[in-house]
């Protein structure tokens, strides 16, 4: 009597329910096996944040380096990686001092510099690094065909700028390999900071025979690069992983204590990075306003670090622009409260209120530049600001203020700042500000063509000398996008560029600092800092404003 009962609404539903359960189980099994099948197609699994026995540290990268050709690298991520896998003539040690790299010793004079290369400096293929590798690298970077964005950093070398502009052949570059181990550099002018340029990636060596065999793919993959730094890239899965291991050919390999630096995650999502940190998968995680509270609640020790960049409002000084009027700019300078901006609006630990275009970390003659030459003080003074504004209105012959176009980027912090300032200038000065929010490339395009009144901009140092900030508003500087022109400032820049005497130079920078403030050429908003959390067992990580962002070459795992 095992006959199935006849279909009725009730038992039809029960049967269907049972069938669905079977189907559900079947699909789970099917889904699982599909995953196993697909998993065999992919590769690479990361370990935990720190492995003391293997000497390995796992980290996350915010984005993938576009490529690792040192002659063309421009971004900080590439700089970060290149700084670990390559080495120039000189390098920074853990105390931020410039110490010998490939060069064993050197002499830098007013017109020429000589470098003696060490005997035991090798490429990762075992061949010796020669002076020719530097000559080739620098010529390549300056060749207009390479179109290197950072070629300008080589301009102190004799004929470099003319070569880069296509007026001279690359062979005319003032660099000679006297023999395999001696490099002679002739200089265009005396360069007080030449040693701090030599640590920059554009100055790293490139082996010609290797480079030419790559046929334009040099630096595109782990195997398309020859290394001479403390580490080599063992594996580079684009968009996913970049794993560096200790370089057995590196001359100073005994200094290196980590065996593996594994950038096992590449994502710009800071929440994801913090989640990886919480899960014990990475040893360091950067914080921003989105995930700061989360880290604070967990009572983690926050580490602060001065990134070395300066954020500022750049005015358009082209003729016909309202912002060409000094009194208008002074009015805005007096109405802007950078303390409130930094502590209440941006509200991220690590940032400092902007008081000068020369950040605090810059070195002066003996002490910090800003200790020797304090920035001119600005007190918020609305009465005075309104007075200046009335003057400006008269000078410009205006009945009513036209709205000022405020060009900005599209990031969250940028929006906060621009909206705050819009409201402040309206309330305190009655000025209308129209925010023009653009993506990065378009903001740059508009900055270059002068399609703005004010723009929220930033400047980061390329080398450890005040000149990296000091020459930005020189009339000939292509990055002076507000086209500010002042013969007096130009003159001080030339003095700072050509003198070797520290007092003269620092004095020139202090004059530039004063002019920028008096003329309100720009309005500094803040000096950028960053906050991050670190696994306390990871020690010896060096962060610096110039060069690579985080230096793990002296790091070690404790415990």
């Amino acid at each position: 009597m095992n006959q199935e009962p006849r279909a009725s609404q009730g038992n039809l539903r029960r049967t269907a329910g049972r069938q669905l359960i079977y189907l559900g189980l079947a699909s789970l099994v099917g889904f699982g096996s599909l995953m196993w099948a697909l998993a065999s197609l992919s590769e690479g699994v990361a370990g935990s944040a720190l492995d003391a026995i293997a000497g390995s540290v796992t980290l996350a990268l915010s984005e993938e380096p576009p490529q690792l050709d040192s002659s063309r690298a421009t971004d900080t991520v590439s700089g970060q990686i290149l700084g670990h896998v390559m080495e120039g003539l000189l390098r920074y040690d853990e105390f931020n001092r410039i110490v010998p790299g490939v060069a064993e010793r050197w002499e830098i004079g007013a017109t020429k510099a000589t470098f003696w290369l060490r005997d035991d400096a090798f490429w990762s293929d075992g061949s010796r690094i020669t002076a020719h590798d530097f000559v080739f690298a620098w010529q390549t970077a300056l060749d207009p065909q390479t179109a290197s964005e950072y070629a300008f950093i080589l301009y102190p070398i004799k004929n470099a700028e003319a070569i880069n502009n296509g007026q001279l052949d690359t062979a005319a570059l003032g660099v000679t390999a006297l023999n395999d181990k001696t490099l002679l550099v002739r200089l265009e002018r005396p360069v007080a900071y030449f040693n701090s340029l030599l640590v920059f990636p554009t100055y790293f060596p490139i082996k010609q025979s290797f480079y030419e065999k790559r046929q334009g793919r040099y630096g595109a993959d782990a195997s398309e690069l020859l290394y001479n730094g403390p580490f080599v890239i063992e594996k580079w899965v684009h968009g996913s992983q970049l794993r560096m291991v200790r370089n057995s050919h590196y001359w100073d390999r005994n200094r290196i204590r980590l065996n593996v630096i594994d950038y096992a995650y590449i994502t710009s999502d800071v929440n994801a990075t913090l989640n990886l940190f919480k899960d014990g998968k990475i040893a360091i995680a950067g914080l921003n306003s989105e995930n700061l509270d989360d880290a604070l609640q967990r009572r983690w020790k926050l580490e602060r670090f001065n990134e070395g960049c300066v954020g500022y409002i750049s005015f358009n000084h082209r003729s016909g622009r309202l912002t060409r009027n000094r009194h208008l700019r002074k009015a805005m300078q007096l109405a802007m409260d950078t303390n409130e901006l930094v502590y209440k609006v941006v509200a991220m630990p690590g940032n400092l209120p902007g008081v000068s275009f020369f950040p605090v970390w810059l070195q002066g003659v003996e002490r910090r530049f800003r200790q020797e030459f304090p920035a001119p003080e600005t007190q918020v003074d609305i009465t005075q600001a309104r007075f200046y504004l009335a003057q400006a209105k008269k000078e410009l012959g205006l009945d009513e203020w036209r709205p000022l176009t405020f060009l900005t980027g599209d990031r969250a912090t940028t929006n906060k700042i621009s909206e705050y300032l819009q409201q402040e200038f309206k309330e305190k000065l009655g000025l209308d500000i129209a925010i023009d929010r653009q993506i990065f490339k378009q903001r740059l395009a508009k900055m270059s063509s002068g399609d703005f009144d004010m723009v929220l901009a930033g400047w980061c140092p390329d080398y450890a000398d005040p000149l990296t900030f000091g020459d930005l508003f020189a009339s000939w500087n292509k990055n002076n996008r507000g086209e500010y022109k002042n013969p007096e400032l130009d003159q001080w820049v030339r003095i700072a560029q050509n003198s070797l005497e520290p007092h003269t130079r620092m004095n020139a920078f202090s004059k530039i600092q004063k002019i920028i403030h008096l003329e309100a050429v720009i309005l500094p908003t803040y000096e950028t800092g960053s906050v991050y959390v670190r696994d306390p067992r990871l020690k010896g990580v060096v962060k610096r404003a110039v060069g690579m962002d985080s230096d793990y070459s002296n790091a070690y795992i404790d415990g």
Partner: protein
Amino acid sequence: MANSRTNKHAYVRYAVIRLIQGAITVWLIATATFFAMHNVPGDPLMDEKAVSPEIRKNLQAKYGLDRPLLEQYGIYLSNMIRGDFGISYAQENRSVNDIIREHFPVSAILGVLSIVFAALGGILFGALTAINRNRLPDIVIMFLVIMGISVPSFVFAALGQMTLVNVNAFLGVSILPVAGWGSVSHMIMPSLILGLGTMAFLTRLMRSSMLEIDNADYLRTAISKGLPPTRIFLRHQLRNAILPVITVLGPSIAAITTGGFVVELVFAIPGLGRYFVQAVQQSDYTVIMGTTVFYGAFLVFMVIVVDLLYGLVDPRVRLD
């Protein structure tokens, strides 16, 4: 016999016509993208540091930007037909073909898993709600479905990741990785999250499709014939109700495979979706063109495949 041959003939003709239509669609996509891209503000050669006019000229020559727009278009089309999308502006020594070849498989794996998950879940839950209409399972599931449709995937992605962190912390062992790519365990959470929206949508579709055939003549006949309930459910209800779900699967596969940007970002997955979005932000012309045309062609192809399958599966589809 004659009839079947004409049918076969009609089918091939139909397939050829659909493929030609598809090719025209892709060409229109490529053309529209090309001209839109060149008219959208943003200069791919512009970067933080200003370069000399000489270098700029060299860069323009390298990427062919110094030629008239129509000539660029012609060169672009002829290269595209030969399957060469050029070199990326942002990653100066990687070709767009390399980028697609390396990153599309990752997106595809993620997409396939998500769609399988979405389809299975959608069919099962849809059927479950239909047979329990207006009872508790129906109400609960339909509430979740509305959530699944209306909550954007970046919220689910962040929530899913947070849940993993907390579960791992609570258990003291890492049962599933929080992010990354490579092993099976890396795939589970992202594919579930990516498939969630589609699953919700398919559940609703399946439910209404089940309810629609509830009053169908053939179902009433089957019940009154006294067929066993299992047979009625599997052969008559489920099988017929699935058809509309299959219809939308093709476009859904394409949508899921292309729409994984947020999930890829949150879970640090090296898929093509990230490059697609980044390229637009960086005005990386060649990558924008390459990925758009590739995805466009993929979507068109999936729609055609589903149409053709449908023609085979469902005799009611007329091929003219």
